[in-house]
């Protein structure tokens, strides 16, 4: 959709001037917005690398110079968060895998196979995307704490598993919760992909007498590999970044099983206020896994978002 070719019947010189001016304006705007989106991030990173002295005396987004540079804040933040990183990954990775698998199955069952009444189920899934989590928080807390204290039941078992601690059992209800509430959006992502596949694919297999299970395993699974990547990245980011469920189900930010997001809002506060060097270091470290994922798979990430809006 580029329209850089000028019309031939206009005076060439004026067009060149016009195009140049426009181009300059255009790129100026683009660069302005690059600054708009990058400035807060650059400021955060620069602050993370500065001594308190330098934070107080220099412009926040300027790089630390000479004596103003320190890695102490990052080291301290990492020491505070290292446990939490393990918790976050222990929670997000299994939750994402189960989530993506179940969602793909659901999308398959509701897209590739046609039956009456499907729409009702589909709409129920769709609404599930749009339910604010507050609407289920009180029941959720009661369920996992009183009705079905799964974490307490599992904790002796977890104590016996090598490399895990008994408190990691507290992550299991969180994993199940994330899976349950993550299914609808992932299901829709898969569904839009399956809908774009040609009908003939499944029809031909059906005529050959393949069972539904065979169709899923032999045909759908292999060709949906790219979509698995998209949904996995999207959902991992969501779960890793999530705050409210952890906030509700983990007793406090000082609990050993607290994930990263729970700790960030309290880190680096002292009697003399917020230590922004520590706070920015912690925020940067917390964001690092998703930023790396995002930069490495920018295309898939964008694809996930495009599909999300239906």
């Amino acid at each position, binding site marked *: 959709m580029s329209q850089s070719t000028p019309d031939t019947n206009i005076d060439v010189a004026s067009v060149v001037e016009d195009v140049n001016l426009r181009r300059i304006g255009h790129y100026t705007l683009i660069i302005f917005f690059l600054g708009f989106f990058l400035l807060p991030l650059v400021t955060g990173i620069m602050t993370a690398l500065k001594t308190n002295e330098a934070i107080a005396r220099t412009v926040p987004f300027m790089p630390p110079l000479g004596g103003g540079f320190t890695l102490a804040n990052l080291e301290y933040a990492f020491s505070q968060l290292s446990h939490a990183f393990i918790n976050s990954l222990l929670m997000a990775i299994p939750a994402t895998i189960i989530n993506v698998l179940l969602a793909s199955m659901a999308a398959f069952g509701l897209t590739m196979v046609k039956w009456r009444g499907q729409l009702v189920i589909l709409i129920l899934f769709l609404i599930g995307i749009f339910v604010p989590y507050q609407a289920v928080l009180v029941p959720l807390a009661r369920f996992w*704490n009183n009705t079905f204290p799964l974490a307490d039941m599992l904790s002796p078992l977890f104590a016996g598993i090598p490399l895990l601690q008994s408190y990691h059992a507290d992550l299991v209800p969180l994993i199940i919760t994330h899976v349950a509430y993550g299914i609808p959006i992932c299901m829709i992502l898969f569904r839009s992909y399956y809908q774009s596949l040609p009908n003939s694919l499944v029809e031909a297999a059906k005529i050959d007498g393949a069972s539904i299970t065979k169709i899923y395993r032999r045909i759908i699974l292999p060709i949906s590999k790219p979509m698995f990547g998209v949904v996995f990245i999207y959902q991992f980011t969501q779960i890793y970044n999530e705050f409210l469920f952890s906030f509700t189900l983990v007793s*406090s930010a000082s609990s050993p099983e607290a994930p990263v997001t729970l700790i960030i809002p309290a880190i680096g506060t*002292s009697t003399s206020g917020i230590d922004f060097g520590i706070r920015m270091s912690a925020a940067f470290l917390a964001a690092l896994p998703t930023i790396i994922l995002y930069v490495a798979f920018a295309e898939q990430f964008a694809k996930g978002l495009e599909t999300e809006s239906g």
Partner: protein
Amino acid sequence: MVDNDKLVDGIGRRTYLGGIATGAAAGLAGCASGNTADGLEVLHGWTGGDGADAIETLTDAFEEEHSDIDGTFEAVGGDGNVELNTSILQRLTNENPMSSFANWPGNNLERYEGVLMDLEEDVWEAEGLKENMQDRAVELCTFNGQMPAVPIGSHRLNNLFYNTAAFDEAGIDAEDLGSTSDLLDALETIDQDTDYVPFAHGMRSAFLGLQTWVQILASQSGVDAYTDFIEGDGDRDAMIDALETLQEIQENYITDDASAIGYTQAAQNLISDEAACIHGGNWLYGMFRADDDFNYGEEWDWIPFPGTEGVYFYHLDAFVTPGDNPSPEETVEWQKFVGTQEAQIEFNNLKGSVPLRTDIESDELADFLKMTYEDLLDSDEYPPTLAHGLAVEPEQQNDCEGAIGDHFMDPYDAEAAADGLLDAVSE
């Protein structure tokens, strides 16, 4: 205070160096507290600074005396006990009580109605605490005919701490400040004649404004105006007058970043020689004493909040015991210990509060506390604090804070705030 920050950091770094071993220990502790009934488990909110030192001394002394008891003492959260209270509420709702927890007694116990353990016989009577504790504390630790709490220390709220250098420079004699209008004049003088910020004030939490308003109300219209208010019969005009005084202070004499800071940071302004005075509970003393270059009688001094001489605005910290207690015997031992002279002296000397026992040699206490302790025993009036759980029920206190938060944090609407406050206590 720098030292305190370092202390907190130091603990963090040690934990890190401890690596997996510490993690395992923490895990086991978490497991023990969450699921089993062995040993004593006490929750408190003193995560840093003077409070952390005080509780550490207290628990060390207890463990020395009772080496047979396996005690776990956990600090939860920070400012204003918010996280601690949430954590307690969650544990008690989940029918997973701890042995004991630090909290305010009095109306605040309403939160835990029906799930508290009575210590009247096993602790209060067994130790003769009723005779040795101040009557007011006995009363506040009695709830629904039971005695589920033992007091550990009392803070006085109506204090004005001032930076002597600032007052000298402005030519103000603190002893002359007998009313809020004197105070306003002094603040104006400081503003005009010196580079000091006249009044250090944190506005990040609404309770700070609420607390200051209470002092102003009592100062301008008498303690009765305040007690009438908490009983649901407030004089609206007097309340509005007090709000307007608060507004004048907040609009003219505080720092630019007040809305972003809490009281600890405001107090730092005093220590760092930037602000002239601050109102607050004498937990501020606990902060000041941690700084070797900021000493009582030299760099800072104290008067009762202007116009409240002879009044001791009463705050109380206590240890409370949940019913269905996981360790009834150990808990009783712990609570008995909390009530001893030794515990009360050791804890309060570091915390900046004063003991509730009436039989303590005041020489055992630090200079400033000695004076406060004498005031505790011999003041004319002892109104309970509003922002710290004693005066009204938790929900009403919450609504009072809401009234200030919604209508009195710039933009100021004194009428709406007064109505909000009256509404809050009328239910």
